[in-house]
């Protein structure tokens, strides 16, 4: 390859790299974008929670109460999309405050446990499911670490 040709290839490579970087910056999700998407599916999330199919987890995500429920492709996609957006928010927030996504996830877990309705299912730290109303103590500390009095398969 001639010197001139090599220069062209290098220039094109540089342009592609710059464009790629710009595209990633421009296309990066903002918190508002994530909130928009989550708002669109909030009604469906609430319905599945009310039906006892999904619930909030200790780690700030949603999950299917019964694994078999995930054979429903729509429900599986709903859970996956919700968790993808939540994780994106935890990453973004952590970058902004100079902390870890885990601290955001745990904070969200606490927040959503407290906001849960009595009939909704919660996945505790040990992975066991419990209905909020079944919790012996409503205090946040016990709510997050207390052992469940009943579990659902």
């Amino acid at each position, binding site marked *: 390859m001639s010197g001139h040709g090599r220069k062209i290839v290098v220039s094109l490579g540089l342009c592609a790299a710059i464009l790629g970087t710009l595209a990633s910056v421009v296309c990066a999700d903002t918190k508002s974008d994530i909130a928009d998407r989550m708002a669109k599916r909030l009604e469906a999330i609430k319905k599945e929670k009310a039906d006892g199919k999904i619930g909030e987890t200790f780690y700030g995500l949603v999950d299917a109460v019964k694994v078999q429920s995930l054979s429903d492709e729509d429900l599986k996609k709903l859970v996956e999309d919700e968790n993808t957006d939540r994780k994106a928010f935890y990453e973004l*927030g952590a970058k902004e405050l100079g902390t870890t996504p885990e601290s955001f996830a745990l904070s*969200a877990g606490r*927040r959503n446990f407290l906001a849960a309705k009595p009939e909704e299912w919660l996945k505790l730290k040990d992975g066991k499911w419990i209905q909020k109303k079944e919790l012996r103590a409503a205090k946040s500390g016990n709510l997050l670490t207390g052992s469940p009095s009943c579990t659902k398969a």
Partner: protein
Amino acid sequence: MKHWLLAAIVAALWATHGCAVSHDVKVEPIEIKPIHITMDINIKVDREVDAFFDEVEKKAAQKNPSVETQPSTGDKR
């Protein structure tokens, strides 16, 4: 007589010195800065999380007024 007086004074001074007790107590400075920083970060994280989920609820309510909004838990924590 003077010798006795001098001896008494010296003895008194010596005894006083012997009785004097001095305590050199050094108190190590208590470092509380890191705790403050950790608490500050945790509070900021909680606020960010509350604000974000409240925003999601608000946007959902605007898009679909039938969606029931959950109360913020910000003050409860």
